[in-house]
């Protein structure tokens, strides 16, 4: 479906588009960000200027970006999808090369005052390209092996580059994000089953290999796994973060210890409390009520996105919306599971809440695309 297929007459034009923006979604995003400001103010010990204020400025900019993108017609995005992917891919190559020169894990490129993390941009670009691919691909071919191989390669190529940085967390997010688009596009469930089965098989094999002649991981890597499975085995070492985070979370109880009263967070027991572990601060200070409220807000955001995707007859738009909301879901699910000790500790921010410009901007960019899809849906 090319842009000529859109019933352009029925698509709002000019400033009228404001009326078609998904306002409940905007409201929900703002609400979640406000929770973030509150928590950043709290963990800074009641100071605005440490984290809350810069974050508010970024949010304001992000909001403008999101609303701006909402006005950009959908067909423009499909038009640039291949170019966006290629540019991001080249930037990743560049970062890897600079990284080699800089003798370290460099993940960003400085362009004037703006610092770009290509791996983050790639998450969006990959979703765009895969959505365009499946929009172009006839439905009958979606599950044909050869036509499945193409998107798999499109996913694995940037993933490999990110892995070399090395940034395991982002690589996993790329694979999962791409996988969600493929899933939404209707690729046969057998493929997913096979991949999951293979992954489980690999994990079992690795664990079985411990202590044998053909041990697949080094001893310290096994010890890290042990720490994940039982954090108390190394309470002052690798397990420390998880134990302290669980203590903070659990001690919140039903209604929490009160705003700015969290002993764990205020007394520095929590690591990275303004970024990766901010959910524990919320849980400690506002308890189960506060934490589940955030969860409800996240679910509502997902709900509005999915509803928007399902009611949109434009396949490209639906796939983008599902892909981006799916990535968003992965973000917060992984973060929460980590701080609860359900997943091994791996630095990942809580979307829209954690302090940090890149993550917020990428999310706002993504939601801009979702809004664009919503505004320009065929009517």
């Amino acid at each position, binding site marked *: 479906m*090319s842009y000529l297929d859109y019933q352009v007459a029925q698509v709002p034009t000019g400033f009228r588009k404001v009326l078609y923006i998904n306002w409940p979604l905007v409201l929900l995003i703002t609400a979640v960000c406000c929770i973030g400001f509150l928590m950043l103010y709290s963990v800074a010990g009641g100071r605005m200027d440490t984290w809350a204020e810069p974050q508010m400025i970024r949010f304001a900019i992000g909001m403008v970006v999101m609303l701006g993108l909402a006005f950009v017609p959908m067909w423009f995005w499909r038009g640039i999808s291949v170019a966006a992917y290629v540019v991001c891919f080249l930037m990743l190559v560049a970062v890897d090369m600079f990284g080699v020169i800089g003798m370290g894990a460099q993940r960003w490129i400085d362009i004037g005052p703006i610092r770009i993390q290509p791996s983050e941009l790639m998450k969006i670009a990959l979703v765009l390209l895969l959505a365009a691919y499946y929009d172009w691909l006839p*439905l009958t071919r979606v599950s044909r092996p050869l036509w499945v191989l193409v998107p798999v390669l499109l996913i694995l190529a940037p993933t490999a580059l990110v892995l070399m940085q090395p940034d395991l967390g982002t690589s996993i997010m790329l694979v999962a994000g791409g996988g969600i688009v493929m899933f939404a596009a*209707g690729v046969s469930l057998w493929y997913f089953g096979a991949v999951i089965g293979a992954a489980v098989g690999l994990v079992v094999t690795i664990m079985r290999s411990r202590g044998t002649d053909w041990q697949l991981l080094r001893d310290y890597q096994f010890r890290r796994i042990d720490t994940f499975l039982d954090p108390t085995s190394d309470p002052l070492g690798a397990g420390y973060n998880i134990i302290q985070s669980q*203590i903070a979370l*659990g001690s919140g109880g*039903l209604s929490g210890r009160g705003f700015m009263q969290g002993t764990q967070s205020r*007394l*520095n027991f929590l690591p990275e409390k303004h970024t990766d572990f901010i959910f524990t601060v919320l849980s400690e200070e506002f308890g189960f009520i506060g934490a589940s409220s955030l969860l409800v807000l996240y679910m509502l955001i997902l709900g509005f996105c999915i509803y928007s995707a*399902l009611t949109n007859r434009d396949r490209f738009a639906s796939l983008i919306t599902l892909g981006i909301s799916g990535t968003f879901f992965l973000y917060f699910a992984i973060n929460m599971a980590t701080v609860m000790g*359900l997943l091994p500790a791996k630095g990942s921010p809580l979307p829209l809440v954690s302090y940090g410009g890149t993550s917020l901007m990428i999310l706002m960019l993504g939601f801009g695309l979702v809004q664009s899809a919503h505004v320009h849906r065929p009517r």
Partner: protein
Amino acid sequence: MKKSQREIMDSSRQITRRGLLLAGIQIGTVTTLALKMRSMQLDHAEEYRMLADGNSIKIRLLPPSRGLILDRTGIIIAGNEQNYRVTLTREEAGGDVEPVLRRLSQLIPMTEARIAELMEEFGRRSAITPIVLADRLSWEQFSAIAVNAPSLPGVTPESALSRAYPRAGDFAHVMGYVGPVSDYDLSRIEDPDPVLRLPDFQLGKIGVEGRMEEVLRGKAGARRVEVNSQGREMRQLSRQEGEQGATLQLTVDAALQNYAAQRMGEESAAAVVMDCQTGELISICSSPSFDPNKFVRGISSPEYRALMDHDHRPLADKTVQGVYPPGSTFKMVTLMAGLEAGVINAGTRYYCPGHTELGGRRFHCWRRGGHGMVDAIKSLEESCDVYYYELAQRVGIDRIAIMARKLGLGVRHDLPMSAVAVGIAPDREWKMARHGQNWQVGDSLNASIGQGFVLASPLQLAVMTARIASGREVRPQLVRSIDGVRQAVPDYPALDISEASLRVARLGMDAVMNSARGTARSSRITREDWRMAGKTGTSQVRNITAAERARGVISNDQLPWARRDHALFVAYAPYEAPKYAISLVVEHGGGGSTAAAPIARDILLFALNGGLPPLDAVPSEARAGLEARHEAMQLFQPEAPRPGRSRA
């Protein structure tokens, strides 16, 4: 290429299917997260709350200040002094401590070597551990650091209490000293007080400080503080002050102790002054002494070695730990054993030819020419050995040993001091148990004059003298009151010795001092109301070899110090109404009458007079010497009028 309406419909249906499936997966995941959250925050909240509080709230102990130790007049002999010191925490110094140390070295003297030593220590210890840079600063240095604190990041001026002994060496052996708690100390204590684990806490090691530790320590206070994960204090939540340890008042008199110490001077000697009626120890002094403050502050190893290597053994407490053959001071025991057994009466005489033959062996009297006919009084007055050789053969050792124990020899006296010696009052059973041999009559002869197996400490000799003087079973007392509560003076029962026997012993002791031929006449007290009774003793520390015997008697002066005889003296005064008993031992001092008796008399006079001995109380020929001695002394002058100065 244009999609057909059919294609769009198919795509839409497929997207809806997969979209709903995705939504289902997401709802499932979020439900799992919510359930986990519920389990942690609702079902297990209490456990986590406890863990969180344990994380953040710590109890910090406040060390109690140690109880004071006073003399009988209220003078502090062990107190606490402010110790000003500075510590530095590397973390607060911003990581680099060297510039801070350099700046600090302009305020207080710090050598390059000391700075290097500290830098090395900072490298070793954690960044948040405060390290003591300098100790025992003057107030001027301390305030200079406090004023300059802003330019010295991480430097904290602190003040803490530390034990101090203002009377320095005078009471070193009685008090003992405190020191840091060692692992060995902890291992000996069952369920140790947590305060003992505080860094820099001082524990009584020996002497009264060690034995009365429980009383003196006090109770720790506590602060509840909130700490961060590095253990750094964020704020104080509550503070509960501790209780100071009990004030301990001893029976000793600081002024008398000081006089005794100076009167003994450099001699290796011990003096014990005891109240004849109450058993209170008024002075218990071992010489030479050492400064216990050095042990509290950390003694340097050359200083310690010097104390250890000193042949006068300043670290040993000769008053209660040292045991000596009592020599002739033991003769009252043998005499009263004979009197009580009915073997002799006061008028029984033996002939002294200067020696006694026994089984081919000759036992000499100290006077080679002999004393002629000797009765009980004269036997003490002139200290005739042959009289006791004759008596011992008739009384037997067992009765002598029983008498010795009645008088407090060979038994342990319970005092809060370290290593109180038991001594030896030998009998047949003891020798069999100790040496696996039968008792020989020769052993009895040696024991009868306080030689051979007999051993007694100066404390025991003082107890013996006090018992003879009072006729009662007095026991030594050192603690006068605890926290103002007067310790009850026991109502001592009369000795199981007839008054007649005691009277003979007393008369003999009086004759020693005051009759024309008394061995210690030159050391008598000339004031009649303080009339003194006593007994000298000279105890051999060596076996006279056959070669020496062949060459004849060698005088003490010709022997090396360590082989000379011990000089002993016991006495009490006033004779009519006994108040104080004294025992005095001068190690390797030579004769008891010349080396020990004058010192004992002067100390006794100080006690009786409540100050320097008046010159008119000593024989005229001794006055000039005593006056010169007093002028050379720098005596301790109690500042305030001394209220409650009672000697009862």
